[in-house]
């Protein structure tokens, strides 16, 4: 009975904290008040949520609505004007690009993750070719990639997912996934992976979980672990920028929120504590497209 309560944090900021911040932000109060709506990437969602919680408690009257649904939904929503900010793991496609302004707020790595079980215990890493075979459906049993006999259950993200696009581009050279069970959302996928024997999928590292097996990448130069050091150096190739698109230049409360996310206060102090995300400034390599 108390379990649920214990896990939850007491309401962190007391009313006093609000009072102090609200005075110093009075000058821009008219900007910060109001609602900012964002939707899109579920990979980016943990970061935006962290920002939202901090931002809302620091700025009374400000409110940020974040809903998931996949990167392409975010792009479509922001382009249609349904939301102010479209979160995406991928660059906006050409047809939407013209009206949208990109704000790269972080980078994140992706990795194949699987249900934990005896069949995959011995497999610590998989090569890109192995992954390609698994996710295109060519390989159907764990024993074919070095594990024990157990049917492989591939779980995909839905077509609108940025994770799917990035992972597909880098591992399969395009969206060549076998058509299989599909989850809308990274969060739901994690739960599904945990409960399905033999299941494998791909997730942003922000969803890395001790109860899931996370595979390193086996290449010519040895095994590369998916961690911040390898991503910033470019050794681990499966990563992408996290974009927050606005329609035209951001203004008003939207701009205030984006400014907050891009501010050193957030990038240096908060972002590193959110699992899996890497500040843009840390990157030693860069990309112009996915």
């Amino acid at each position: 009975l108390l379990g649920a309560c214990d896990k939850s944090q007491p309401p962190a900021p007391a009313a006093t904290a609000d009072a102090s911040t609200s005075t110093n932000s009075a000058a821009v109060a008219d900007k910060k008040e109001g609602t900012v709506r964002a939707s899109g990437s579920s990979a980016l969602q943990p970061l935006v949520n962290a920002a939202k919680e901090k931002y809302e408690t620091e700025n009374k009257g400000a409110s940020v609505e974040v809903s998931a649904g996949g990167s392409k939904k975010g792009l479509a929503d922001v382009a249609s004007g349904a939301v102010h900010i479209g979160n995406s793991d991928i660059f906006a496609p050409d047809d939407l690009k013209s009206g949208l302004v990109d704000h790269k707020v972080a980078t994140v790595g992706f990795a194949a993750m699987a249900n934990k079980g005896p069949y995959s215990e011995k497999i610590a890493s998989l090569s890109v070719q192995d992954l390609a075979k698994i996710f295109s459906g060519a390989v159907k049993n764990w024993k074919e990639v070095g594990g024990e006999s157990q049917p492989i259950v591939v779980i995909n993200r839905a077509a609108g997912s940025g994770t799917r696009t990035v992972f597909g581009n880098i591992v399969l050279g395009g969206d060549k996934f076998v058509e299989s069970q599909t989850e809308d959302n990274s969060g739901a996928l994690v739960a599904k992976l945990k409960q399905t024997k033999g299941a494998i999928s791909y997730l942003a590292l922000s969803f890395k979980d001790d109860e899931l097996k996370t595979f390193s990448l086996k290449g010519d130069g040895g095994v590369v672990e998916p961690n911040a050091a390898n991503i910033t150096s470019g050794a681990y190739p499966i990563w992408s920028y996290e974009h927050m698109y606005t329609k035209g230049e951001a203004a008003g409360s939207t701009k205030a929120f984006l400014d907050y996310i891009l501010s050193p206060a957030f990038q240096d102090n908060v972002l590193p504590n959110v699992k899996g995300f890497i500040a843009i400034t840390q990157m030693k390599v860069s990309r112009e497209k996915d």
Partner: protein
Amino acid sequence: MASKTALAAEIPPFVPAERLRASARPRWGEIAIRGFIAACGLFVVVATAAVIMFIARAGVRGIRDVGLGALLSGEIWKPEANVFGGYPLIFGTAISALGAALVGAIPALLAAVWVSELTPKGARSIYRRTMEVAAAVPSVVYGWLALVHLVPQAEWVAHALHGEDVQVSGEGLASSAVLLGIMIAPTVFLLSLDALSRVPGTLREASAALGASSWQTAFRICLPGAGRSLFTAVFFGFARAAGETMAVQMVIGGARRVPANLFSPTTTISTQIVMDMQNATPNTTASNVLFSMSLVLLVLSAGVVLISRVVGRWGSKA
């Protein structure tokens, strides 16, 4: 009036006794309310027309872009690659709704016959109450329960049926059909009960008076007597199952292909609409095609219900 008391004299008469003519002043309040009432009727028509029109406008564009044949019979649905074959969606919808009718509607109907004809009145109201609450339970609650409790069992059953080598996770047509069956059973039960209660009691009495047992009365008089309404009840359940979205989405798996067996993941029209609508840019083919598919769904379920109603009306006139 001769016997009017003194009291009466103080009270002004309500009707000017000499007059029958309508007063020159129209009764505005009356006219306004009549107008409102008629407007409500009109509103229903306009709203329906608007819904159909909005769906059809985009839907027809989608059909034009893709071609009706390709849309209905193509076996690959991949909007991200601009391939729109709706057959897996239609197949999934039809099979899970049919399965639901089989798993849920038919037992519910039989249960309704039993409860309506063969149990005492007291028990009847308990059954009815229970089912009313069960029918009001949101479908997502059923979906969530199925996700937590049904899907793992389905995985187990699938392995038992198809061997250990099959790739399943329990999400698929079997789960969704059972879920939908459980979901529509209370509604079908209640509708059937209503249909049976509309069979005149006098017919039951007449049958009993001829020496029929309550069973014979139930199956020879009440069932045929309520036949068309029972039909409608089952069809209504079918249509509801075909149109259900979120609950199905939670258990059907979402693979956009014709499933290999009842336990491999597939999708339905409405599920796919919700999924794909999220990242389709309005006014593109990818978006329009979703409206086309909803037209298909509309024809599937509305058609079924309308036909059963028309048959019902036409039959009751005979």
